[in-house]
């Protein structure tokens, strides 16, 4: 890592004009180091997007329109868990299941802040392992908005999608007779013309920013396409290409 950093610095010295590629390389190195502390896979905004989509398609075109995404400003979370309650009441989530959760991390020997809260939910992956595993296409990727949906009447309840999901985002809902998961409140809100999801609306500290990643005017787009602040995704190594991004600040 240090060697790479030195090499990158040499590149900067060689040319007075810092190219975009060099700038990216520098960011990747710096952010990779930060990732050790964050616990997740951390990448620069640009490289994150390059991981999500085939080369060359990042800036030019997103697979979905709108391309629903969420940015979680993890350091703003105070652990009030109103998002969880809002999700439960909006989507009739039973007491034995959950669609979103706020995890708590405690590092007693850390300097300064001793802990943090990490909200999790379905990552609406672009390469969803659950969709690949389902034998009867009961779960599928919506071709328009990219949300991983459920067609309850098809679900056979084999639970392979639960095992396949790297994000623990699924559970079997007895009342529905099918697997249940976060659909970005599509059934309860978005399909009725509302623009935001329940967990984002209720959040008092603006942790969850929901929006359209393909719209340059959208706040999500702006948060993801900046280079100043690190952005990361969870479980990058599974190559699921998630659409839930994490950042601080």
């Amino acid at each position, binding site marked *: 890592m240090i060697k790479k950093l030195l090499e990158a610095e040499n590149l900067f010295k060689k040319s007075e004009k810092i190219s975009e590629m060099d700038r990216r390389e520098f960011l990747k190195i710096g952010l990779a180091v930060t990732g050790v502390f964050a*616990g997740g896979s951390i990448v620069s905004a640009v490289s994150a997007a390059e991981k999500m989509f085939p080369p060359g398609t990042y800036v030019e075109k997103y697979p979905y329109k709108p391309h629903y995404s969420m940015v979680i400003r993890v350091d703003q979370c105070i652990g009030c868990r109103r998002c969880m309650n809002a999700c439960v009441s909006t989507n009739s989530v039973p007491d034995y299941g959950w669609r979103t959760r706020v995890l708590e991390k405690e590092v007693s020997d850390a300097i300064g802040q001793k802990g943090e809260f990490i909200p999790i939910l379905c990552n609406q992956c672009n390469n969803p392992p659950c969709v690949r595993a389902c034998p009867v296409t009961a779960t599928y990727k919506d071709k328009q908005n990219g949300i991983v949906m459920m067609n309850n009447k098809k679900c056979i309840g084999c639970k*392979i999608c639960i095992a396949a999901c790297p994000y623990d985002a699924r*559970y079997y809902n007895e009342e529905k007779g099918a697997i249940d998961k976060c659909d970005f409140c599509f059934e309860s809100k978005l399909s009725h013309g509302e623009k935001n999801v329940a967990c984002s609306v209720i959040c008092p500290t603006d942790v969850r920013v929901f929006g359209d990643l393909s719209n340059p005017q959208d706040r999500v787009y702006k948060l993801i396409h900046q280079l100043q602040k690190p952005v990361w995704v969870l479980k990058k190594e599974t190559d699921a290409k998630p659409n839930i991004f994490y950042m601080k600040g």
Partner: protein
Amino acid sequence: MGCAENSSLTNHIKDAYSRVLSGGPVYLFLACLFFVLFIIGVISGIYSIFIAGSRHSYGASREIPLAMLIATYTFFVITSTGLCLVSSIGHIFGVRDFMPIAKRAVLLSAITILSGFLVIGLELENPFRLAIYMFVSPNFSSNIWWMGVLYAFELIFLAIEFIFIMIDNHKVSAAAGLFALFFGIAAISNLGGVFAMLQGREYWYGPYLPIFFIASALMMGCASIIFFTVIAYRIEEKSLDDAMASSLAAVGKLTMIMLAVVMFFTIWKMVTMTVGGTETILVIDALVKGPFAFNFWILEVGLGMIVPFALLMGSGGRRIGIMFIAAALMIFSFFFARLDMVVVGEIVPLYWDLGVKEYSVLNTYTPRWREILVVLGGIGFCGIAFMFGEKIFMDSGNARRPEGAESEGADNEP
């Protein structure tokens, strides 16, 4: 003509019925026991899924979604493919020592696959939807979809193979057997793929399981045919004839080879896991000295590998009683080995690497009694189908050795 055929069929059924009834008290007791187990298992499964709800009945959970019933299904279908493989050695590839066991192996292969279907049918939350949406809404990238298709074809060809064995048309039965073999191997490796293609589960992910399942299938096929053949001769109260004894000796040798192969698979799986990162080390820890240590060391390694290997070696292929004990131990232990394989793949919490409180303890699984009853139901079905199958389709006393084959001479008392 049709009338004569009907009459012949009626006579055949009457004969089979009288053979079942004349099986003796032990036979009838065991038949009743297996039948009761089968019925209780089915009732337990139906009640669990359709009335009480699987969440209240089975030990599987969000954290451990695939558990004992999946392990039992895996156990049965691996055995089924193994039996199909063993039958093919003689019946399709013409190895004469394996011919006497072929017919029984085909029948048992069909029985065990049906036992597996029964168990998984009582595990699925909505089994009736499967029958519809497998056809109208298939997902060709799903291993489970392929599993259903491949096993269905294997079963169809096994049935054709068996019917043509019964009517002594070996050309057609061998052709059907070849297809059954093809679909069986494809199905078993694909079953490995069900686990191996879950990239979020480090313990399962990779090409290991599809290959391992084929090797372990052949091992289980060998063990099962030894086990069931000895019982079949006990049912008939007959000693093994030379042809069958010689055949079982050959099967015993193959069992030892496959046991050794499975041992190497197991050793190298464990060794490679030591450098696989924190999560795989946690799994090793659980297997070697954690909650799965008894299952791993005593059942899977001890009773499932080392003791049977020693017994088979000591039997010299002649002492059938010892071979039977080795086979019984292998079958018993293999069930727990599959249970371990399924459950330990899910014990490491998915967000373990984040170091958060909610995912800081290894997931646990304890089977519930209704789940265990479904497993016993599967065993009951297998048992009753075998016992009826022996009386209806088999004639243990007349297993013939192909001409020209030499007898090894043996202490043939089962």
